């Protein structure tokens, strides 16, 4: 090797394609701490740091082999004591002898390396700032996507609510239609009720007129029977007298039925007039009892009357007597031999404004299913025990209507087989 190379201020090394070092100048051996003999023949990797060895094998050697030269390559050398020395390397490969030799000049970089370190650090900082920015951007994008999907979700929910609202509107309209229909039916029913009422009043009017028309010939029949019995038209045989008796009884029966019908009709038409006065309950009962005593005696019943004279009502006495007669007749009619009929009365213990009269019997009693219906017109308890009983079935209906017409009421209690009790309440004479 040219001795002048030893004087150069930079390192010099030459090696073959197999990497074996052929020459090293004194500048390089001195810097690395080797003797020249320790390096000649050894692979050039000997003076390279490990990272540089890979770099040499993968980059520098292929480049020099293909390109013939390389310029300003940074390499880390490794001194004998392990010190790492940064150098810039220029290399040229050219034929020499039977093969090729690569001549390599190495210039140590100290100041430049500091600048490079600063540049590298700045580059790394810029890269990590860029990465942070990217990850922040990605974060924001994710947040944005999330907001978008939430927004979409809200839109879907809103759509759902709108669907429900329109469904409710449809249902509301259906309900309105249904309601309109119900109102319409209600009005229709009201019209029908009014019409039925009018028809019923017409019927009652007809019955009132007819009853009146029927009573006139019946009275004539009764009158003429009496005249015949009195012998006005000649003497009457026993057989004729018996026949006249039967005609008379039938006439009376018919007349009673017609009177009942007439009363009901009058009440329904609203033509009943009440002549109200203060009357003692005891007197009212006393007036009626004689009318049923013959039947009580005939049936062998026990009658008990217990009405204090102090109980005073404001009523139409004739109407009250009619009610009491009806109640007592029923009690007698439906009570078997040996039974009893009890009449009690007085101030109503549950009301400051009412008095009461109760008619109880120990008769057949009324089935509970019928108890509610006995006050309806034309109702009779239909079983073998009552079939023979006479009457229109209007008595209780008329009685309740009369009681209510005076501001009172008529109610019934009964136990089948043990008897019945009818309670008539009436307005009390509070001034008394």
């Amino acid at each position, binding site marked *: 090797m040219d001795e002048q190379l030893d004087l150069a201020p930079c390192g010099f090394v030459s090696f073959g394609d197999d990497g074996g070092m052929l020459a090293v100048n004194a500048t390089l051996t001195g810097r690395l701490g080797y003797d020249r003999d320790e390096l000649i023949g050894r692979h050039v990797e000997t003076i390279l740091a*490990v*990272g540089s060895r890979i770099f040499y094998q993968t980059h520098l050697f292929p480049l020099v082999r293909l390109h013939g030269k390389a310029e300003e390559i940074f390499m880390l050398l490794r001194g004998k004591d392990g010190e790492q020395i940064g150098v810039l390397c220029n290399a040229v490969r050219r034929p020499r002898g039977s093969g090729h030799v690569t001549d390599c000049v190495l210039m140590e970089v100290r100041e430049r390396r500091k600048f*490079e370190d600063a540049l590298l650090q700045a580059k790394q900082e810029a890269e990590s700032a860029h990465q942070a920015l990217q990850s922040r951007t990605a974060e924001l994008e994710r947040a944005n996507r999330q907001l978008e999907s939430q927004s979409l979700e809200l839109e879907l929910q809103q759509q759902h609510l709108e669907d429900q609202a329109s469904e409710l509107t449809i249902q509301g309209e259906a309900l309105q239609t249904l309601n309109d229909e119900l109102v319409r039916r209600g009005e229709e029913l009201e019209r029908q009720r009014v019409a039925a009422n009018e028809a019923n009043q017409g019927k009652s009017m007809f019955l009132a007129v007819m009853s009146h028309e029927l009573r006139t010939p019946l009275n004539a029949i009764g009158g003429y029977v009496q005249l015949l019995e009195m012998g006005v038209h000649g003497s009457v045989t026993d057989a004729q007298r018996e026949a006249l008796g039967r005609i008379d009884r039938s006439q009376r029966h018919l007349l009673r039925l017609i009177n009942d019908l007439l009363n009901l009709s009058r009440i329904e038409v609203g033509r009943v007039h009440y002549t109200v006065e203060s009357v003692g309950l005891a007197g009212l009962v006393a007036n009626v009892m004689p009318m049923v005593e013959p039947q009580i005696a005939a049936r062998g019943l026990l009658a008990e009357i217990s009405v204090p004279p102090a109980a005073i009502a404001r009523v139409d006495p004739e109407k009250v007597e009619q009610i009491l007669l009806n109640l007592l007749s029923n009690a007698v009619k439906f009570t078997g031999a040996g039974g009893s009929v009890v009449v009690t009365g007085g101030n109503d213990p549950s009301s400051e404004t009412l008095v009461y009269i109760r008619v109880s019997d120990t008769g057949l009693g009324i089935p509970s299913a019928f108890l509610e219906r006995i006050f309806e017109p034309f109702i009779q308890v239909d079983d073998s025990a009552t079939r023979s009983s006479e009457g229109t079935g209007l008595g209780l209906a008329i009685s309740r209507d009369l009681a209510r017409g005076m501001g009172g009421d008529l109610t019934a209690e009964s136990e089948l087989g043990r008897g019945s009790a009818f309670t008539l309440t009436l307005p009390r004479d509070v001034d008394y």
Partner: protein
Amino acid sequence: MTGDRHPRYAEILRRNNVKMFGRGTQPMLFAHGFGCDQNMWRFITPDFQDEYRIVLFDYVGAGGSDVKAYDAERYGTLEGYARDILDVVEALELDDIIFVGHSVSSMIGVLAANQQPGRFERLILIGPSPRYINESPYVGGFERADIEGLLDMMDRNFIGWANFLAPAIMKNDDRPELGEELTASFCSTDPIIARNFAEATFLADNRADLTRVSVPSLLLQCSDDMVAPQEVGEYLHREMPGSTLRVMRATGHCPHMSDPDETVMLIKEYLASPATA
């Protein structure tokens, strides 16, 4: 070639800068290693082009490839590079392939062959290593700090914009004089891509893929290769079924460049033997 070419034929040819030549029919597919491009094969392909159809290419990011096709996620592992090989194989409809891979391309070739073993007849692996970092009792040759030293070295050289590492400039088809100038710039590579490739290469561990190899292989182990030490070659030979190990006289990591004659001779010898696993 007929009109019934693979739909991606033109795209892959352009993307991976594929070059085909030779008078034979059986394809020899050459895959370059980390740090260079298809130019590294120029010293040995002349010896095969009379008998075989030579197929050269550059991985995306290297040499004359289309840098715009680079996808950091895809090429973050060697699987992405294996996909490049299979893309070329599929687009060119190659079969009975003799695959020649250097350095990291050995393992990339193994990954590709494991995916489509039917396409490959033999694998010729130059300076292969399944794992560069030592992991006792496994000897890979490097500690993690060594790899970091390499990455630092690369960073520094990219700062200086040394001419050989200048990024591949776009190809300019209507200005061929520019193209010629570029082909003169061997082993050009994009600095960011090169750094990612270095990490994918030197941090990879493909030991588990070796036992699955069903294609017969030739392992060319250099003497005194500090990148792939002899223990690594022996490990590969033990693990890979149907492998033939040849330790070369050539030293260093690039015998096809430092000693093309021995490299060609060993490959021809191997190809002359029956292809059985």
